[in-house]
């Protein structure tokens, strides 16, 4: 049982299995340009063979736990690194790394997505949910040789409290954090992405979106992993959000979008 996953009771299910939900991506926007428009028969729209597999109960990771791992102490940061206002903010809020994973699979049809996207809306019911960072986003993407090295990296902004005893690397929620020495501690995060062409918007709001445009490899039949860092009140114990998935495909010169219904996800803040 212990090799089946992270067996924390009450978070991923009693035996640690991740509960996945399959969502059809079948709502064709502007159907009239996608088919012949016959008023009988099956009315096949080729794009209706895609599904998204979503983890309905992901687990968020507090950023301060990551800092603790690297022995970064926000409270001991010098004033020129973190202002009194920011310290006051940390008294009320915690930053959480929220994973948004989806597997896009094609069960039938021949349509090939030229782009896939995820839209996430945090259901905050009046309380504070503010997106601080989106991962990946365009500026994190690094092109390697021959466009083959597809990865991204981003710097965690806190650069203080270096400790020689700190570990060099740790993994949280599928993201790899690497410590760099020097005058301060600099954390770099890295992971694989399916394409170097990524657009991400939503910082400072409760709504965020990622869009991945096709480069060489197919955008389906694989996992699409995105994360956000959100500020939540420290008493908050879970974060509900709803997500929607879409893909764009092309028939001759016509680009069309097919999307899923919204699916609600309950993220445990562990």
């Amino acid at each position, binding site marked *: 049982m212990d090799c089946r996953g992270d067996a924390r009771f009450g978070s991923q299910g009693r035996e640690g299995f991740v509960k996945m939900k399959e969502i059809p991506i079948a709502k064709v926007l502007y159907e009239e340009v996608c088919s012949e428009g016959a008023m009988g028969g099956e009315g096949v729209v080729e794009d209706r063979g895609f599904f998204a597999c979503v983890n309905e109960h992901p687990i968020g990771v507090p950023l301060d736990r990551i800092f603790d791992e690297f022995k970064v102490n926000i409270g001991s940061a010098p004033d020129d690194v973190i202002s009194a206002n920011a310290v*006051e903010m940390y*008294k*009320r809020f915690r930053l959480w790394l929220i994973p948004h994973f989806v597997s896009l699979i094609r069960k039938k049809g021949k349509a090939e997505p030229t782009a896939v996207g995820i839209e996430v809306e945090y259901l905050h*019911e*009046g*309380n*504070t949910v503010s997106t601080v960072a989106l991962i990946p986003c365009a500026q994190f993407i690094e092109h390697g040789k021959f466009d083959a090295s597809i990865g991204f990296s981003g710097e965690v902004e806190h650069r203080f409290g270096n400790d020689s005893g700190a570990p060099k690397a740790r993994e949280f929620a599928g993201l790899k954090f690497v410590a760099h020495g020097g005058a301060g501690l600099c954390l770099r995060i890295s992971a694989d992405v399916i394409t170097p062409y990524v657009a991400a918007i939503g910082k400072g709001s409760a709504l965020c979106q990622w869009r991945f445009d096709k480069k060489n490899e197919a955008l389906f039949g694989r996992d699409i992993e995105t994360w956000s860092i959100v500020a939540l*009140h420290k*008493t*908050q*114990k879970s974060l509900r959000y709803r997500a929607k998935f879409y893909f764009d495909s092309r028939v001759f010169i016509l680009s069309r979008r097919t999307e899923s219904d919204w699916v609600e996800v309950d993220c445990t803040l562990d």
Partner: protein
Amino acid sequence: MPKAEIDRLVREALRTDQLEQPTISVDSMVRDAVWGKPSKVEINRAARESFRRWAADNSTSSMELFTVYDQSIGSTIEFSKDTCNISASERAILEAGKPLTSSHPLSRRLRALPDGAFVLYKNPDMLQDAECMRRADKLAFSMAKAYPRVRILREPYTPDTGKKVKGVIDTEIDSANVVCITACDSFSVTQWRTIQNIKPALIELGLKADNFVEVRDGVRPSMRRERNQAVIVITGHINANLEKFIDSLGEAGVFSDNLVILNTCNQALTRKVVEKILDDYGAIGVFSFQGDAEGEIRASSIEEYLLDMANELRGKSKQNLYDLLKKVIMNKGLNGLWTVEEMRGLALKEGRVS
């Protein structure tokens, strides 16, 4: 000289807003003083003595009225039957939140009423000069912080003083009595989502979900009317918008015969708002905070003390609100005072002013 004329002379000399004038019982000293074209100084002295006698007459074994006069070298704290002088340096010690030595007359005096309350009333100087009032308020806040076991309140000036003070210091509450009211965006009251963010945690600690009320501008709040025990928690940045919000709640009768905790910074407008809640809208008492050197209190402190208060009330029978609130705010380094009905309210009720 007719009594009415003497009253008029005293009022004129005090140069106060007519609405703030008490009808004082002018005793023989005042009469003597005003009989022969007295100077302003003489009238003030007479009025001060008159106020002191009033305070002595209205103090009881469980509630003693006191006031504060600024002197050039310190302050005089005038109790009903005696006075304590404190130097400027002793005042500074108190303002730092520290008590004077246990043998100091003030410390001894405050120990004399272990189960009762000391109540600051407005003296003639405070009525004339807002700065005198501000300094007296500051000293009262400081005494409350320096002597946490002593119950200190502000300004009742009515025949019901004892009853109202008792209403504040004897009230016992449980989780069901705490009502949190927030303003919808339409009021533009900034409150940093303090209540919204901790609402789930407060409910988990036992506060009733129905007792969180969001009020929209122009819409009469629909809430269960409680009396004599409900603790109405109002949180917001002190400005004209908060005042408008308070007016809306007051006109809907939300404050009537209830206890109100006003979670806002201590600015000049705060006192006006407190007086409104008491005098115009009939609250039994209003708790307001002293704040830091600039009179400010932080949203994080409010959240923490409210969570502590809910935690203290969790699963327990009724607890004394005065003592509970004092305990939880002091644990967070906060300080505040209860104010009960002001004399302006009495004057309005008695039809002496319109």
